[in-house]
């Protein structure tokens, strides 16, 4: 009896040791605590769902596929610290992340040291892929296309000619507003003003400027985050100005409607790089599984994270095959990701030489003002090649 016990223990230990050798992990990095945790959790759960669904396939290949979630707290220092731990875990062969470009840029430099592949579901700053790092890819659009996409919609579809441009003086907001203005003026429109403000409560001076601007602006474009645009719109509407408003994906949060009030928020246009579930016919079934498993609605970033994880999963599978069934190296996985050709939930995923998706989708949305962010109308999907 004792012998049998020893034997069982021995077999179990051997099994664990073997299992250990065949573990493959995919890491996620996104804020899981703090004010942006709601968005970051969507990234983690989206990747988790994709990994759960691939587990059986990997078992047949003789590998145990696991998720390794990390919390970057939307903070560059913490992101870089995690990145160092990630590159020191040899089982991690890919990273899905981050939420914030400001965190993704320094962290990806750490991954680059060991050529560990990062596929981003959410980072829109042009610099993410403009630095020539071979291990960095993204499946969402870029700010230097998002701004122009908004400008074209405003000029061609809303027939706006005079626009009042505001930005929040951050790399994101100002960059977006500049790209918007550039394209709008190239189309023949006029930016009546281009103003930066860090103000978060008293927007009265800005509103008086809009009131006195000549020619009268037909649209206000605000490159910034919902926490600033929300109170701005509330005060603007309270003071009786009905000028239409447009923003970028920084406005894409139900918090915007809460801060502005549904009445004031109603009708606001925004462009976003991560469309809602309703924008993707293929996402419907996955969203149902997501809801069943996690008890939460699947939002844009989870869909993109699901696709990002699948890009890495497919690359690892290809690399295993090319490697004769053995565990691939990070270099091999990165090389396979660069060759990706995949039909994801969000459409065809193929990367250009920089690591941008060849054709990214941009969505023009309009706030419904019903108190439910998911009711917002999808007005237009624009597909634009990466610059």
């Amino acid at each position: 009896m004792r012998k049998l016990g020893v034997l069982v223990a021995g077999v179990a230990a051997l099994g664990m040791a073997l299992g250990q050798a065949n573990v493959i992990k995919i890491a996620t990095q996104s804020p899981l605590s703090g004010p942006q945790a709601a968005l970051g959790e969507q990234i983690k759960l989206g990747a988790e769902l994709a990994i759960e669904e691939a587990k059986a396939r990997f078992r047949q290949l003789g590998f145990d596929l696991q998720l390794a979630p990390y919390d970057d707290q939307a903070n560059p220092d913490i992101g870089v610290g995690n990145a160092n731990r990630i590159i020191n875990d040899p089982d991690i062969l890919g990273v899905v992340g981050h939420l914030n470009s400001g965190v993704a840029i320094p962290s990806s430099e750490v991954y680059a040291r060991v050529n560990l592949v990062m596929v981003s579901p959410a980072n829109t700053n042009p610099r993410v892929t403009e630095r020539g790092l071979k291990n960095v890819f993204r499946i969402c659009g870029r700010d230097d296309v998002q701004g122009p996409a908004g400008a074209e919609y405003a000029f061609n579809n809303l027939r706006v000619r005079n626009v009042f441009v505001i930005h929040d003086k951050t790399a994101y907001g100002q960059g977006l507003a500049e790209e918007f203005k550039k394209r709008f003026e190239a189309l023949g429109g006029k930016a009546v003003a281009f103003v930066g403000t860090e103000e978060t409560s008293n927007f009265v001076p800005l509103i008086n400027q809009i009131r006195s601007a000549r020619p009268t602006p037909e649209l206000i474009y605000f490159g910034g985050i919902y926490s600033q645009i929300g109170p701005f719109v509330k005060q603007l509407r309270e003071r009786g100005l009905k000028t239409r408003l447009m923003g970028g994906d920084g406005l894409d949060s139900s918090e915007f409607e809460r801060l502005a009030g549904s009445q004031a928020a109603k009708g606001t246009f925004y462009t976003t790089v991560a469309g809602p579930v309703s924008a993707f016919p293929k996402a419907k079934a996955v969203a149902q599984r997501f809801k069943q498993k996690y008890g939460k609605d699947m939002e844009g970033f989870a869909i993109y994270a699901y696709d990002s994880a699948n890009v890495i999963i497919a690359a690892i599978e290809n690399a295993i095959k090319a490697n004769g069934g053995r565990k691939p190296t990070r270099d091999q996985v990165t090389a396979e990701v660069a060759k990706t050709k995949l039909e994801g939930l969000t459409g065809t995923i193929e990367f250009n030489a920089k690591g941008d998706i060849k054709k990214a989708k941009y969505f023009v949305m309009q706030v419904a003002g019903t108190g439910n962010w998911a009711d917002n109308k999808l007005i237009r999907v624009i597909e634009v090649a990466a610059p």
Partner: protein
Amino acid sequence: MLEQILSILPQVIFDGFLLGFVYAMVALGYTMVYGVLELINFAHSEIFMIGAVVGVEVFRYLAPAVPNGFLLLLLALVLGGLIAGGTAVLVERFAYRPLRKRGTTNRLVPLVTAIGVSFILQDLVRLIEGLWHNEFFLRMRTVEDLEGSFELFGIFIQTKSVILILVSVVMLWGLTYLVNRTKLGMAIRAVAQDIPTSSLMGIDPDRIISRTFLIGGSLGGVAGVLFALQYTTVTPYVGFLPGIKAFTAAVLGGIGNLPGAMLGGLVLGQLENFFGTYLPLLTNNNFGTEYKDVVAFLILIFILLFRPQGLLGQIVREKV
């Protein structure tokens, strides 16, 4: 350009007054504490913030129960004033009084304590609101009675702006009356003149100082509620900038001088609002609204170069 400036000038002046009255009410808190203790109570910014947060919470919880918007606002003002004033009293009791009792003569020690208290209050409110509602940005609830607006001589005026001006004028008048005409006011002035001597005259300085904090804190709290009503979004850090500006206003007016603090607040509100609106126009879009504080503070420095004691202040002589 001139036509553009003139077309909205009445509006800009009116909005400048709105902001100015908020600064004036907060500035009085700084000036009173300075007058009595010669202490710059930087935690006063956070007292103002606490008033704003209490205002938001009162509207959140009592709006369904109290159908009348004006009554609701009155409740918010009273509660906001009391809680903010109470916090100020606690801060004095546990942070400043022990230092005074120990006879700390270094002026920097209470100043640094004040800065520390200010951070503690910010994070305390953030913690409480985080646990309670999991919200960082607090939104002032909309109440129909207070949302009206009308136009007068081309000036767009909201009901709540009128209330803000009325309430602050009443508060400012009440405070002036209290300090100049009542027994408590006389005691405050006596303590401000000389603490040891006043205690020989049968005044309990600790009690008077405590009341000074209560009054100054309540004013700050009321200003906070009105600020939240006017500008609608509140965070635990919302007190910092208005606090610094109100402090500047107190210095501009002549710190320790009550009418000076009011005047300083109004001047600063006008400067800020004027340059906030017109800078892009005056500089041909080279300088935007974001430089409004820079210009306003430059002008303040300029004024103080020529009148270091402040607009209504007197040159401090040795107390006799």
